[in-house]
């Protein structure tokens, strides 16, 4: 199951749906939005934007890459877009496998690949402006200086 959704991720449901009697291991990775602060300013929330349907296709492609490399029986990747509050999940990756080694390795692989190839972008909205993470472009004083 590979999806890009707006609105909160219900982590328990996404994970429980991957339990299978032929698997002994379920490894998950959940990315949560992290508070950040510098002198006089702090992150208030994050906003994610995706290039769809290319992003959906890339998630499914990562699932196929995993299936080629490891003995896994279920892979779920759900990425949230739009506004996400601090400490909330932005992505949930679930891998169910007969053995735990494969489950751990595949879940780590999934998040690394997401960060390499899936066209999704994160904008940190600070109290003094915003910045596109990775590009360092935005309206914050520091980001403007880089333009």
């Amino acid at each position, binding site marked *: 199951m590979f999806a890009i959704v707006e609105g909160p991720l219900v982590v328990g449901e996404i994970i429980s749906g991957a339990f299978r009697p032929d698997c002994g291991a379920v490894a998950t990775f959940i990315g949560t939005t992290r508070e950040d602060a510098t002198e006089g300013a702090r992150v208030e929330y994050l906003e994610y934007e995706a*290039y769809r349907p290319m992003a959906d296709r890339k998630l499914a492609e990562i699932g196929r890459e995993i299936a080629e490399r490891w003995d896994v029986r279920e892979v779920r990747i759900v990425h949230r877009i739009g506004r996400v509050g601090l400490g909330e999940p932005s992505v949930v990756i679930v891998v169910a496998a007969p053995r735990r080694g494969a489950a751990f390795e595949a879940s780590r692989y999934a998040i690394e690949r997401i960060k390499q190839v899936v066209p999704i*972008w994160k904008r940190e909205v600070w109290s003094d402006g915003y910045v596109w993470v*990775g590009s360092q472009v935005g309206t914050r004083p520091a980001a403007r200086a880089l333009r």
Partner: protein
Amino acid sequence: MSGMNGTRAVRVLLFGAAADQAGARELELQVRDGATLGDLWNELTGRYPGLTPMGDTLAFAVNQEYAGMERRVSPGDEVAILPPVSGG
């Protein structure tokens, strides 16, 4: 698509910081026969100079698959300008 007057338009989508720098998220560009992504990029930075400093960091997609600068673009193609991805 080929127009009656021989012009050929591709649809260009810009995301994230690239949309910010161009001040546009979607546009159409006319391209000549045999034009490449590189040609299209030159045209684009001529029109939106704010994109130029991002050049080294950007990736490009044609019809939703990553593509290099030598890739030919054809009428009706969807070209996307992709800043460094930062999902997860």
